[in-house]
């Protein structure tokens, strides 16, 4: 059984009062308090600053960080069996401080380690000497599902297999740092490290400013520049390949793509032609030079790798074989994460580098070898027993990995028998004990076990290690095992220098050449989502306006049988909206659809726009539980309308007038055209109930204009003139057509050498017809056909840009 941790109190320190009551765990090193019970130098500065803020302000400061994370919409997904849900990013507020001199040791050790890993990987997918010389058992590789046979013999065009790796580190009982695991497949979390930093500095800007903390931006900048240079050398772009919005770290993929200016791509955005990987964009196919993948290698190509992958690109392996694309990291690099490989690294380091490992890893014995197997069995009580070929870290694997001392006699016997029978399936590892660091819990500091996640990137100048990053903080006091998925937290890591540090940002510096990315690289899938976002947002607006007009009238008469009310319900029913509900389900689902479309293109618009949309969604769902029909609903609709206008305004005022904005605009215009044509046809039809024309005007937000322009001759025709044919009314049908025409002409292929695309031509035809039409021409049948004209236009746009 695990020995219960004993508590001990640090020696009282003069000054900081926050640490009085900080109870250390017996025999467990702590990041803040040294073994003699004294507070370490950097920490003493931090704690003094915390004391200066005082018990009232400190929590308020931490709340600022929370507010930032909420505002930025930082989240990750958590899997609960079949269900997944979005979780707020669990920031631990107190940063973890690491002294620069200690960081140098980590940084140096990891550089050595990643160079060793590169050599091992190059051999596994190259000459295979490590196996033939007896340094690496063939079984470990041949049985490994991360050994991607089609990749054998393919030399990466960049000359390197590894470009971006992460390492999980823990501080062992002897005070030194240990490598708990290597992440070489597609390491996640670098974006969260950035967000940790931004959030923490929002809370503690003054303290951060005075403490000489190493900046993170330089690391990202160097990596970005390296990938851009590689891509330019191949006349292409850099893309980030994501499994899509259902992935647990999709937020981070979008965040990094936006931060570094890379395209965010999914497998279906790519196509291979003549051995070259191309991006399907609205301007046609564009070459890709570098792909930073965030999906497991086996899923990258359904033709040569896993045939059941639905997130890959057929022919990707072929493109790599022909050397037309640089893959970050090479497909197959996941094999380095194999747990049993750790057993061979010390020997491989001496063989390949001629030197011992600078940073030790947790001692590992692979039971596929007789001597090692017997050692593990003899010391079973002091071993973690786990699957040899797993790539899950032992500390993240509560189901698959067990401490030998926790087996009952029957289990123990069964495990020993299994190890004897199928030794190759098992590893024994020494149990991990971690150090603790302070977390802030209800006004006090408490120690929690921590691990460090450290990132390494290959740049033109060699490997560089992110100075800082993030620490994972355990949930309870047990220093034996932690796991983010079990409810831990993440803390910012400050590497603290005794001297001022270099200030780095990603903004261009003096003397730096400005490189403007060429326009038009909008993936077709993103354009499609933008159109739908525009359409849903507009559909939501149209529905809210109708419901507001409906409820305002209902509030006056409190009689649902009133003809105009019954008639409006009949109109809304086919649209899936039941106006008898104060906040109809159909409206909520249109809002949800808008959010869903937006979530697939998070890299395309600002966090403010995203937040505004989320705010609308949250408010609408909250209203649905308490708002009543009539006055209450009228007010609620006004609130929702304002929030929606907030979103539209943010997008309209802030979004760069790129192809992306045009597609969003096209979506809005198409939907507004459809909605206007429909409601106008309905409300102006013969036999429409009393008050229909007034209601139409109110829905069309044109009451004032109408009064001004047609004060004398108001009638059915004046309404039609204003809502269909008036080119100056932004809520007229012709206004939508005119804008659509203008947008389509500007899009790639809209007009080429004077020749109009089918969509541009159709918009021109419709526009011309409406320009010369009079209100009298807009009879019932023509009005009914109008919404069909918009749908046809939508079809032509889809044919041109999304197929």
């Amino acid at each position: 059984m695990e020995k219960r941790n004993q508590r001990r109190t640090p020696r009282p320190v003069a000054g900081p009062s926050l640490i009085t009551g900080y109870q250390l765990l017996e025999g467990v090193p702590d990041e803040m308090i040294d073994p003699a019970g004294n507070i370490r130098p950097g920490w003493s500065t931090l704690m003094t600053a915390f004391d200066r803020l005082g018990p009232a302000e400190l929590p308020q400061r931490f709340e600022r960080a929370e507010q930032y994370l909420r505002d930025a919409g930082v989240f990750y997904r958590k899997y609960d069996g079949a269900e997944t849900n979005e979780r707020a990013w669990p920031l631990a507020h107190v940063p973890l401080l690491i002294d620069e001199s200690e960081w140098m040791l980590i940084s140096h050790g990891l550089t050595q380690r990643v160079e060793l890993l590169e050599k091992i990987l190059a051999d596994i997918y190259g000459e295979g000497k490590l196996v033939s010389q007896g340094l690496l058992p063939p079984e470990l590789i041949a049985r490994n599902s991360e050994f991607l046979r089609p990749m054998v013999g393919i030399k990466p065009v960049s000359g390197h297999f590894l470009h971006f790796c992460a390492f999980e580190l823990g501080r062992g009982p002897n005070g030194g740092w240990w490598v708990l695991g290597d992440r070489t497949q597609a390491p996640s979390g670098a974006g969260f490290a950035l967000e940790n930093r931004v959030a923490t500095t929002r809370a503690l800007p003054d303290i951060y400013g005075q403490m000489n903390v190493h900046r993170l931006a330089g690391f990202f900048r160097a990596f970005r520049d390296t990938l851009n240079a590689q891509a330019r050398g191949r006349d292409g772009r850099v893309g980030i390949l994501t499994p899509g919005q259902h992935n647990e770290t999709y937020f981070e993929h979008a965040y990094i793509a936006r931060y570094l200016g890379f395209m965010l791509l999914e497998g279906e955005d790519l196509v291979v032609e003549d051995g070259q990987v191309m991006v399907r964009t609205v301007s046609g196919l564009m070459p890709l030079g570098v792909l930073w993948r965030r999906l497991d290698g086996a899923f990258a190509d359904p033709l040569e790798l896993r045939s059941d992958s639905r997130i890959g690109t057929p022919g990707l392996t072929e493109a790599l074989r022909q050397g037309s694309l640089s893959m970050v990291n090479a497909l197959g690099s996941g094999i380095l994460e194999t747990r049993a490989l750790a057993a061979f690294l010390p020997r491989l380091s001496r063989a390949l580098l001629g030197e011992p490992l600078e940073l030790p890893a947790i001692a590992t014995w692979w039971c596929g070898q007789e001597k090692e197997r017997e050692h593990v069995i003899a010391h079973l009580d002091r071993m973690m027993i786990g699957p040899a070929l797993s790539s899950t870290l032992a500390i993240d694997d509560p189901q698959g990995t067990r401490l030998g001392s926790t087996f009952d006699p029957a289990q123990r016997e069964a495990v020993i028998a299994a190890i004897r029978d199928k030794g190759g399936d098992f590893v024994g590892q020494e149990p991990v004990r971690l150090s603790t660091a302070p977390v802030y819990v209800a006004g006090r500091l408490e120690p929690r076990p921590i691990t460090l996640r450290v990132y390494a990137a290959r740049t033109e100048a060699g490997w560089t290690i992110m100075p800082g990053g993030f620490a994972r903080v355990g949930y309870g006091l047990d220093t034996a095992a932690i796991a983010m998925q079990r409810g831990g937290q993440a803390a910012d890591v400050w590497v603290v220098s005794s001297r001022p540090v270099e200030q780095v940002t990603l903004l261009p510096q003096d003397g730096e050449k400005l490189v403007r990315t060429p326009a038009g690289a909008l993936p077709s899938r993103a354009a499609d989502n933008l159109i739908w976002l525009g359409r849903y947002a507009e559909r939501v607006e149209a529905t809210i306006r109708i419901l507001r007009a409906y409820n305002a009238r209902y509030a006056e008469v409190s009689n649902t049988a009133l003809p105009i009310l019954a008639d409006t319900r009949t109109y809304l029913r086919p649209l899936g909206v039941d106006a008898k509900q104060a906040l109809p389900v159909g409206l909520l689902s249109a809002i949800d659809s808008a959010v869903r479309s937006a979530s697939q293109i998070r890299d395309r618009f600002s966090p403010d726009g995203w937040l505004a949309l989320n705010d609308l969604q949250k408010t609408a769902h909250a209203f649905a539980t308490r708002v009543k029909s009539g006055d209450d609903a009228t007010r609620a609709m006004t609130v929702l309308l304002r929030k929606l206008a907030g979103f539209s305004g943010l997008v309209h005022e802030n979004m760069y007038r790129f192809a992306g904005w045009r597609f969003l605009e096209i979506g809005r215009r198409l939907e507004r055209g459809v909605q206007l044509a429909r409601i106008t046809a309905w409300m102006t039809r013969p036999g429409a109930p009393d008050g229909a024309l007034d209601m139409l005007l109110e829905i069309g937000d044109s009451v004032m204009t109408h009064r001004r322009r047609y004060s004398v001759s108001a009638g059915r025709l004046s309404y039609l003139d204003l809502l269909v044919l008036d080119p100056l009314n932004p809520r007229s049908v012709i206004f939508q057509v005119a804008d659509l025409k203008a947008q389509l002409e500007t899009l790639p292929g809209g007009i080429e050498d004077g020749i109009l695309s089918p969509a541009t031509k159709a918009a021109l035809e419709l526009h011309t017809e409406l320009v010369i039409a009079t209100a009298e021409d807009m009879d019932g049948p023509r009005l009914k056909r109008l919404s069909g004209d918009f749908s046809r236009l939508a079809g032509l746009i889809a044919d041109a840009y999304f197929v």
Partner: protein
Amino acid sequence: MLYDVRLTLHYNYAASVHGDRHHVRVLPASLPGIQRVIAASLSFDPEPAETGAFVDFFGNAVSTICYRSRHGHLDVRLAARINVEERVADADLSPPIQALREEIARLWSLSGDSPHHFLSPSPRVAIAPDVTAYARQSLLRTNSVQAACMDLCLTIHRDFAYDKHATRVDTLSGEAFALRRGVCQDFSHVMIAGLRGLGIPAGYVSGFLRTIPPKGRPRLEGADAMHAWVRAWCGKAVGWVEFDPTNAMMAGPDHIVIGYGRDYADISPIVGVLRTSGGHDTTQSVDVVRVE
């Protein structure tokens, strides 16, 4: 023995397809001491927008084709002349099963024909207790690895019914075992599963078979289909030995090898990725004619 092989694979798509990409593995291999390809030509209809070729991990020749414009069908045509050597049946020099494990452990290689690749489950072949138990009987009845393989080959042929309608092209080894019926692909998958369960490295062989006509009757043109059988690694002295459980025999001068894999998924005649709203019909015709 000299053979002329003609193969046509015909795919008819219910809805026309485009942007499709395929890997074709039908070219017979040149294998020293076993067979030599004198001439071979492979053609496609319609003409692909891109063609290419490479050699895969297991040493098989792969032809790649890709289409950009819409098409409603795909024909793959192979014509080849191959000289097949008379395989000399060696005496059984294979070790008992315990010694085989040690021999494998001492084999420090990951090349495409290293037995290490052929011991674990693969996409179409699972290792299951019932199949292993079935195969273990063969081990108990014999005292060398090669004899056990031959025994299992004969046992499967005895216990399983050849039935073209019982299974599909994507049937897994476990399902075929439960049915006790299937075609050459299923017989082979079951045998591979059984051997791997015993710790004997086993792989899949894709190829052609000359059907020997009954006495006094003409050979049936086009009646033959693509064939599959099994190879097992029977120790360092013997190496890989090929068994045909569908015909209860070792592979011989009537067997023409296309290539090797862990199972059908590694060496299927054609594998492609295409987007279509409809399904497709497949027909296949093979002629293996002895020239002299």
